């Protein structure tokens, strides 16, 4: 019995419970799609109005567009910072600015990612029909919130730099 289990584990790559959970899951998803109706997944008139396109597209856009973009942006930020401090170590600020840039960029980017329909006025007609209003304030509001995030970060950076400066000056005689 034991050797049978080991054999199965080697053959399949995991224990039988793993196989049963996954097969059960696939069967259930098959049922979900069957109840929805396979034909509902695809829109033969406008291909990109298909549910399946948006479902798979969600993975592709996140994994192959959004993630590489923000990872490259962040790595460039780090590389740029290292290049500057490497060449001019004396001119390097006492407090590394990297997180004071990252945080407001992330905040502003997250808000755009989540609320871009209002910001770029997409879905104008349905928005107006639903609410009786226009989307005109959203771009300005997003810009103002972003300005506030960058401004707060700048203030925090200035305060931190001053504090670190004082501490270093206090420490100077002792070191």
């Amino acid at each position: 019995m034991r050797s049978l289990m080991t054999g199965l584990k080697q053959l399949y790559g995991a224990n039988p419970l793993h196989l049963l959970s996954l097969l059960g899951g696939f069967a259930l998803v098959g049922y979900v799609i069957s109840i929805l109706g396979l034909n509902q997944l695809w829109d033969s008139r406008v291909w990109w109005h298909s549910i399946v396109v948006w479902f798979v597209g969600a993975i592709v856009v996140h994994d192959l567009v959004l993630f590489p973009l923000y990872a490259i942006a962040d790595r460039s930020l780090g590389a740029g910072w290292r290049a500057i401090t490497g060449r001019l170590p004396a001119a390097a600020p006492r407090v590394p600015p990297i997180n004071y840039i990252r945080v407001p960029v992330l905040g502003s980017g997250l808000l755009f990612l989540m609320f871009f329909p209002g910001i770029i006025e997409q879905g104008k007609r349905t928005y107006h029909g639903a609410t009786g209003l226009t989307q005109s304030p959203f771009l300005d509001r997003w810009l103002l919130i972003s300005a506030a995030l960058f401004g707060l970060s700048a203030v925090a950076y200035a305060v931190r730099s001053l504090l670190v400066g004082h501490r270093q000056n206090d420490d100077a005689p002792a070191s």
Partner: protein
Amino acid sequence: MTPTPPETDDDSRPPEVQRGPGDGRQPPDYGFPSGLWKAIEKYKPPGIPSDKAWRSPLRGPWLTSVFGFLLLVSLPLVILTGLLDYIAYGPQFHQAIPGNVGFLHLPFFNWPTRPAWLFQFTEGLHVVLGLVLVPVVLAKLWSVMPKLFAWPPIRSVANLLERLSLIMIVGGIVFEIVTGLLNIQYDYIFGFNFYTAHYFGAWVFIVGFVVHVSLKFPTMVRSLRTRSLRTELRTPLARTRPEAPDPDGLAASSPSPPTISRRGALAVVGGGSLMIAVLSVGQTVGGAARNAALLLPRGRSYGSGPNDFQINRTAASAKIDPAATGASWRLTLLGGPTQVLLTRPMLLAMEQHSADLPIACVEGWSTTQNWSGVRLRDLAHLAGVSAPLSAYVVSLEGPGIFSQARLQSNQVVDPDSLLALKVNGVDLSLDHGYPARIIVPALPGVHNTKWVRSIDFET
């Protein structure tokens, strides 16, 4: 406290200690058919990052498990409130969308009218919590990215099936977030029916979620024990060390020096969630908080008059002919021995009742106002129906899914269920349903039919 010895000790173990697959840093053995998996390994396409390309010193099973734990305790609330809202739409009357869901629903029950804020609460929680979790979902996905690009992609059939199952959970969660976000902003660029897609997408996600949790729960518990959250919250950048290498390859094999502490990264994610909470909760709770919902449709002010509150579908978009709402308008009551026709002055001459009730929408926003008009049970009595089992309300607007709604018995006889004629002491505006609209405690907003033409009390 580490229950398992550090992975680096593996190599110093006596050779007779058998290594199970997936135990330690070494890649696990290949399952059947190993020739195929090894062949795939040789054809690494360009653009797939190597193991050494992953340099974050924070990635690792502990951090992934922290995000996983947060989602494990919070997502069931989003799922449950979403499924409850399907019940609130009245599936027993075939007016919940999508219509045919097989076994994919909670047990049907009559949606209660008390507490009056029930739907405001369930739908508000569904939407606000869903929004608040977006940063956590993004962080969780970031933390497991090395696995997506790991090469070889498949080492066994188990591996293949597990990767396929991730399509359900990753596709499911991102699909639900995207469709939900577009819907609450009235952007229907996707072209398909929102309710259908969001409902079935949710079930695909639920299946993926349950499978993933059942496979990964032991790993999560084990990983959470490798570090103490309390210690991490006290560890500054200078003392931040990478996590130990793990069999799943989440921790970088050659990490860069950290630029942010682990607690700092958690604070960034938590701060993002907090910011989203502040910017969205006002849509649901109203009051002064509404002004903070700066980027959402229902944070806007309409003015300070009695009718200046959030409109759901203007009269113009419902194609209401203003002439049909004038003096010639009649309310038709059906279901009794004879049809009863009432003018607006006749309705105003009846006993008036007022109640503070929320309009709460499936998009998560709500607004509580003081409504007054005639009790629905009084109208049933007038029609000659003493114990209605349901009431079918039809609007003046043309054919459409929300131009009519059926109310349950408890929703007809509740003392606060009204055919409202006034709001905040003045006549309803045309956009709010003049000459008369339904307002029922805890009923989804769109079923509070506006511009009512007839009510059929069914027995």
